[in-house]
């Protein structure tokens, strides 16, 4: 009952890989690349208001490819997909942005270097999480802290903040959306 969210469009991808397996791979391997992927898209695309959309489109393409076969090397595969997407967008828009799609090699494909060690990641995770929470808009920040960290119910939060439960839900939804953007785009595993 997420209001206003329509159901029903395209079908599901072919099943070579089980969908949960492909999604687990996606969350584990692809999502941590968000920051560097955004950087790549920003660098190569003029209209910054498209970046969020391009990013999501890359994700869908990568995930659908993984349903057929999980790529051997995630990073090069993700960036090749991004480049191909940019090229096809350029073609369909019949415009040629300067510099578009140039920089894949420069970005590096130092892409194969191993990420920082897992322990470091674990240690930094806490700081990254709290930074992300800190950067939420204040009205969302309070409800997110109360719900996620203090485990208060919507009713309790509403009472404390003098809001209706409906408003708490709206702020919470907003907070969830923003937190995902802040957290994924701050993942150090995706630094070049």
């Amino acid at each position: 009952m997420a209001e206003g969210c329509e159901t029903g469009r395209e079908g599901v991808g072919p099943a070579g890989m089980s969908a949960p397996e492909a999604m687990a791979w996606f969350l584990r391997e692809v999502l941590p690349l968000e920051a560097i992927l955004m950087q790549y898209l920003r660098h190569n695309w003029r209209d910054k208001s498209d970046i969020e959309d391009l990013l999501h489109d890359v994700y869908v393409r990568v995930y659908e490819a993984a349903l057929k076969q999980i790529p051997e090397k995630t990073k090069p595969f993700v960036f090749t997909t991004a480049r191909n997407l940019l090229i096809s967008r350029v073609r369909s828009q019949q415009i040629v942005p300067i510099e578009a799609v140039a920089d894949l090699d420069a970005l590096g494909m130092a892409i194969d270097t191993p990420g920082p060690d897992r322990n470091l990641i674990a240690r930094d995770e806490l700081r990254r999480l709290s930074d992300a929470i800190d950067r939420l808009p204040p009205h969302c920040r309070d409800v997110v802290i109360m719900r996620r960290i203090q485990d208060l119910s919507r009713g309790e939060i509403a009472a404390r903040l003098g809001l209706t439960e409906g408003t708490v839900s709206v702020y919470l939804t907003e907070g969830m959306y923003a937190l995902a953007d802040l957290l994924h785009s701050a993942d150090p595993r995706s630094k070049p």
Partner: protein
Amino acid sequence: MSASAMHTKEIKACAAAWLERQDRSDWSANDQAELEAWLAASNANLIAYWRVHDAWKRAERLVAVQPAVVPRAPPRRKIWPLLTGIAATLIAVAALGLGARTLVSKPQERTFATPVGGREIVSFADGSRIELNTNTVLRTRMTTEERIVWLDKGEAYFQVKHDDAHPFIVIAGGDRVTDLGTKFFMRRDSGELEVALLEGRVRFGEADARPQAQTTLLAPGDVATASSNAMFVTQQPVKSLANKLSWRRGVLVFDRTPLADAAKEFNRYNRQKLVIADPAAASITIDGTFPTNNVEAFTDVAQHILRLHVEYRGNSILISR
């Protein structure tokens, strides 16, 4: 923005709305079926959902950092006297650990208190909010005529909605802060009061209202320190003040901090007290971010990185060379 870009935002907003819905207590099998239909409708939906889900799930790790400040199912006060002996003690301790919120007899006067390691956010109808740090007691009188807060002990962060007609006043012992539209924090610690201003302006001075009472106007970055007989103001970059507020995120940030000072900070948040037993160790400086309630992370660093000797003795942890 292109239509496609608008569409992505919509999908992401829907995914967040689903997650929010799912997080409610009345989530039903019917809802689950609806969600599954929405997820099956397109891979764009599916990815948006799992992406926001992943972030939300990760944020749960902060629960470990955050001591249980707030009662989940608050024990009913009136049943306490019925319980005897150990059970009563345990429940009383648990309740303390959960951050008691006491209503005081005077109308419109409320008391907020946090235990050692606790933290609490209080919001007011006027849009102002106060965050209480560990071991803090604060009283408020918020009426249509006046807005007064007494910081009886501890530390709090204030975010004040300014109102010319109703100044927001914080009284800490013999000192008084009058807000002029502002974010600031105050810390009362063994006879000393520290007031630091992040945004806006405040007037700081003696609490009594005599015309000759000394007051000074603080600007962002100003840190005023007052004891019973002296007061001085220093300027600090607002950014470095932010480190002093890291407790709002449940962490302590040390930046070339002497071990003795770091231990003192930790001790504010924990019942198990760190004691730096020799001066050579006390002056070693450390960097890093630690959850306020994770003394072990600190002793780990002392033991394995600084190669110091760590000894547990009752409620104390002795650290020495």
